[in-house]
Every structure is written in structure tokens, then in C-alpha cells.
């Protein structure tokens, strides 16, 4: 076992992040299904679907999106789910075994950036909804729309900060109502679109700006949704750790994340095809298509729902950054909440429209960093550690900590990460979203994950030979020996 510093509470990496004991992991499949659904469904699904409208028509786009989501969830199922369900630890902390006792701060940073990115998407939609309501009701002129959007976004972030700094328990029930409301809204949007152009109009609508190569259009849509599903990595660990076994988590994870996300995203795709300037965002057409009364009610719901969704995301991001002891010691909870919202505020003021219009760039960045991470985690857990972790070492630090490697960083993970990122960049430019070389036949995330995993495995052979990382103990440890050792 680990021989790091004694396991006193002061030495723990993060007090907010206690391991859940098996007896406390009381969620059943139905609980996880409901929770996964409420996490996946928010108004961002419309915009995600809208990105595919550039490349594919309704039927092909729907199939490609579903394929991408399933592949991405497969990546999640072999990376974070087995670790989190077996040991009751969350995503960021689980990365300590392969990133190192200090390297795992990179995972925390990624978690923070990804949550901030999702928050920004819904805050921008919130601002647009408020401005649309005010313009529709004649309270402001069209020329004041942009300024109103910015003020509404900042006001929304202010409200979120005021609520979450108190550690609102209202978060617990808000998410499922938001998800339910978004599903109702999606159904209404579908009804409006059918009323407007008919079923045949939806099915016949042409993609907005496809590549010449048809296969590239399919692959780039699949890639966008692989990245979307992989981007749930930070959320999934926090949920499945409450389930006592990987088996129980398997199907609820697939159905809870895949089906609702696909359903709402498909409606976003249809909206993007029928109302080309909307990019799938319903705030752009609700009042025109649905009439003033319905439009204003639906937009008001979007405002409330997005405040709720932002609260959940910002709360998670604030907890995430407080897992870093240096930040936790120097910041109050209120400050951490403010830090979680600042990136969204900056984007809202300066690049709101550009950010949502280029959402695929954000998705590509998620894939760029998380695909290698997932590949490395799967190889580390299944091949190198034989599904056995040193839980005590996850919560302690010190020169002799099992996951200390060299100065808290695992060079094998650096190599794996580097190879994974390079592979991704070779296949897809994340900034311009331009495919390269054989991307059309492979996507970018999958080769990146496989290359990162392979490079990590090779580099870890050297690390293991040098007696670092606790791999030898993991290879020889079995549950009976562990229990016996603990009794002594």
C-alpha cells in the first residue's frame, strides 16, 4: 500500500471530494438514468444539433449524430465508468493514477474549462432570449438588441453567483425540471417546424454549407458528437460513483445520455435546416414562427432554464477548482464561484456570437484533450493496474506517494498526451474545423485516443521498470491479500 504522508484530514488533496463507500452507493439504474438525462438535456442541445445542419440533411444528420454519441459514450464506458463505480471517486481525482499527484491538476483545469464552455453556450442563449422578449414586446428597439443581450448575460451570471455562493440546495431539484421543460420545449419546436414547412419540408431541407466530399460531411458530424459525448467525462464520474457497480451503470449511461441528447439535438438540426440563420437556436425564431404569446412564454422558460443550468455547471466548476489545495487555501467559496463565472462573463461581453457560431471549435478542443485522456485512463486502469488502485494514495501526497512519479508528474502520461494531441492535430484543425489527411475515414478523436493509449502503455513500461507508479504492486495485489494486510 501507499506509504505517503499519514492520512490525516489536513493532508488530503481535497476535502470536497470524499470517497463514497460501497454501502453509500445506493443509486439504482433508474436513478442514474434520470440523473444522466437531466444532465445531458439543456438548451445547448439545440445549438449542438444546429452545427450538423451545415453538413448534412435531416435523416443522414440524425443517423450520424446518434452514431457519434454512441461511440463517444463507448469511450466513456471504458475509461471513467469502471474506475468511478469500483472506487467511488470522481473523474478529476481518478486521473491522479496516470497524471501523477500533481499532474492531475491538468484534469481539474480541463474540467473547469469544459464546464465554463458549456456555461457560456447557455448564457449566450439566455441573453438572446431576454433581448428577443424585450424587442417582441416593444420595450426596446432593434438597435439596442446587442447591448441588451450583454447586459442580460451579465445579469444572469450575477444571479447565478448570488445563488450558488450560498450553496443552494435548490440545485438538487432544478435540474430534472429543466430537463423536462426542455423536452417539452423541443416537442413544441418540432410541432412549429412541421406546421411551418411540413414533414416533407423538413426531410427535403438541404444542408447549409457542406463539403464537396459527402463522406467528410458524415465524418465531421460524427466527430462533433463523439466530442460532445466525451465532453461529459467530467460529469459522468460524479454521477456513476453513486452506483455500486459498472454493470448497473452500463445501460442507464447509454440510454440516459444518448437518447435525450440525440432527441433534442435532432430538433436543433431540423431548426438549423429550416431556419438557416438560427444555427438551431430557438430564440431566433420562436416569436416569428410560434406567435408573440407562445414565443414570449417559451423564451421566458429558456431564460429560467438557462439560469438553472448555469448554476449547476458553475457550481461544479467551483467545486472542481477547489480540489486544488493551493486554490482552496487562498479562495473563499464565494470567490471560487466568481472565478467559475468569469470566463463566461468575458466571452459574453466580447465574443458571444462568435463563440456560439463556432461551437464546433469548442467541441474540437474537448476532443483534442479528452480523447487522449480517456485512452490513457483505459490503458492505465485495465492493462497496467489490472483494475486495482491505491485509494489511500489518491487522497494523500508526499515523496513516497504511489502516484508521485517524478515531482508529481508521470512522464508516460506526458508522452501519451503529446502523441494523442499530435495525432488529433494531424487529422483535424480544431480552430478552423478543417479535416486533414485521412480524417474522413477515421475521425480525429478515435485515432487520438488509440495513439495516446498505445504511447502511454509503451512509455509506462519504462516507468514500471524504474519502480515508479505502483504498477508492480497493482500487478501482484489481490483482494484477499489486501484485506489480510489491512487487518494486520
Amino acid at each position, binding site marked *: 500500500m501507499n506509504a505517503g504522508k499519514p492520512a490525516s484530514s489536513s493532508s488530503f488533496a481535497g476535502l470536497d471530494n470524499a470517497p463514497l*463507500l460501497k454501502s453509500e452507493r445506493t443509486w439504482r439504474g433508474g436513478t442514474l438514468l434520470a440523473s444522466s438525462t437531466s*444532465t445531458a438535456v439543456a438548451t445547448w442541445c439545440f445549438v449542438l444539433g444546429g452545427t450538423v445542419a451545415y453538413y448534412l440533411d435531416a435523416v*443522414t444528420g440524425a443517423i450520424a449524430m446518434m452514431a457519434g454519441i454512441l461511440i463517444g459514450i463507448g469511450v466513456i464506458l471504458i475509461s471513467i465508468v469502471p474506475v468511478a463505480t*469500483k472506487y467511488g471517486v470522481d473523474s478529476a481525482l481518478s486521473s491522479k493514477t496516470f497524471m501523477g499527484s500533481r499532474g492531475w491538476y491538468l484534469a481539474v483545469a480541463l474540467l473547469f474549462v469544459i464546464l465554463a464552455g458549456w456555461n457560456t453556450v447557455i448564457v449566450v442563449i439566455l441573453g438572446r432570449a431576454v433581448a428577443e422578449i424585450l424587442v417582441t414586446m416593444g420595450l426596446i428597439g432593434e438597435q439596442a438588441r446587442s447591448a441588451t443581450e450583454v447586459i442580460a448575460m451579465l445579469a444572469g451570471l450575477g444571479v447565478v453567483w448570488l445563488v450558488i455562493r450560498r450553496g443552494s440546495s435548490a440545485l438538487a431539484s432544478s435540474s430534472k425540471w429543466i430537463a423536462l421543460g426542455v423536452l417539452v420545449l423541443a416537442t413544441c419546436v418540432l410541432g412549429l417546424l412541421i406546421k411551418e414547412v411540413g414533414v416533407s419540408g423538413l426531410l427535403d431541407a438541404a444542408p447549409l454549407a457542406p463539403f464537396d466530399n459527402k463522406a467528410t460531411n458524415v465524418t465531421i458530424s460524427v466527430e462533433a458528437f463523439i466530442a460532445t459525448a466525451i465532453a461529459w467525462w467530467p460529469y459522468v464520474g460524479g454521477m456513476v460513483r453513486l452506483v455500486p457497480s459498472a454493470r448497473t451503470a*452500463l445501460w442507464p449511461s*447509454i440510454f440516459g445520455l444518448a437518447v435525450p441528447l440525440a432527441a433534442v439535438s435532432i430538433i436543433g438540426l431540423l431548426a438549423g435546416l429550416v431556419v438557416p440563420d438560427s444555427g438551431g437556436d430557438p430564440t431566433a425564431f420562436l416569436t416569428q414562427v410560434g406567435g408573440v404569446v407562445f414565443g414570449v412564454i417559451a423564451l421566458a422558460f429558456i431564460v429560467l432554464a438557462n439560469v438553472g443550468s448555469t448554476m*449547476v455547471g458553475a457550481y461544479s466548476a467551483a467545486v472542481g477548482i477547489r480540489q486544488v489545495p493551493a486554490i482552496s487555501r487562498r479562495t473563499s467559496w464565494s470567490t471560487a464561484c466568481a472565478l467559475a463565472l468569469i470566463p463566461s462573463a468575458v466571452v459574453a461581453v466580447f465574443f458571444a456570437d462568435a463563440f456560439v457560431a463556432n461551437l464546433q471549435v469548442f467541441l474540437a478542443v474537448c476532443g483534442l484533450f479528452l480523447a487522449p485522456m480517456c485512452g490513457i485512463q483505459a490503458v492505465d486502469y485495465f492493462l497496467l493496474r489490472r483494475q486495482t488502485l491505491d*485509494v489511500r494514495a489518491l487522497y494523500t501526497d508526499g515523496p513516497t506517494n504511489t502516484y508521485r512519479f517524478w515531482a508529481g508528474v508521470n512522464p508516460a502520461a506526458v508522452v501519451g498526451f503529446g502523441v494523442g494531441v499530435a495525432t488529433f492535430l494531424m487529422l483535424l484543425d480544431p480552430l478552423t474545423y478543417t479535416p486533414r489527411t485521412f480524417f474522413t475515414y477515421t475521425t480525429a478523436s478515435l485515432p487520438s485516443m488509440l495513439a495516446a493509449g498505445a504511447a502511454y502503455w509503451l512509455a509506462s513500461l519504462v516507468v514500471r521498470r524504474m519502480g515508479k507508479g505502483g504498477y508492480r504492486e497493482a500487478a501482484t495485489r489481490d483482494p484477499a491479500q489486501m484485506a489480510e494486510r*489491512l487487518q494486520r
Partner: protein
Amino acid sequence: MTAHELTPLAGVAGPALVHHLPTGAVDDFAHRVELASEASNDGDSYAVVDYYAVALATVLVPLVMFVVALLLA
């Protein structure tokens, strides 16, 4: 309030399970980690059949979808 009672919040807030761990639970942190380190605390992993299920649902089915999408595009 115990961590058990906090679980409904966890799924909503994702990784934000327990910023507000009750004082008693935080005091109990060291003991909790010791308990979590025991082999008997391990949750069950996938069974062999689950790997086939994962492969079917997340490799084979998407592959077929991918081919269908290519044919339709």
C-alpha cells in the same frame, strides 16, 4: 446529514458532489478513506458479457449507422 443523504444532489451537480459535506463527515474524512481502501469496498466491475454489450452498442451499431449515413449522404 450523511454522504448517503447527499447523493441526490450529486447527480445534479455532477462532480460537485459535496462541497457542502457536513462538518461531521469532513471530520470523518481520514476514517472514510481508510474504509474506502479496503478491498470489500470495491464495487463490481463489468462481467464478460458486458464487454460484448459495450462493443455491440458503441462499436458495431455506430459502425452500421456510419455506413448507412455514408450511403444516404
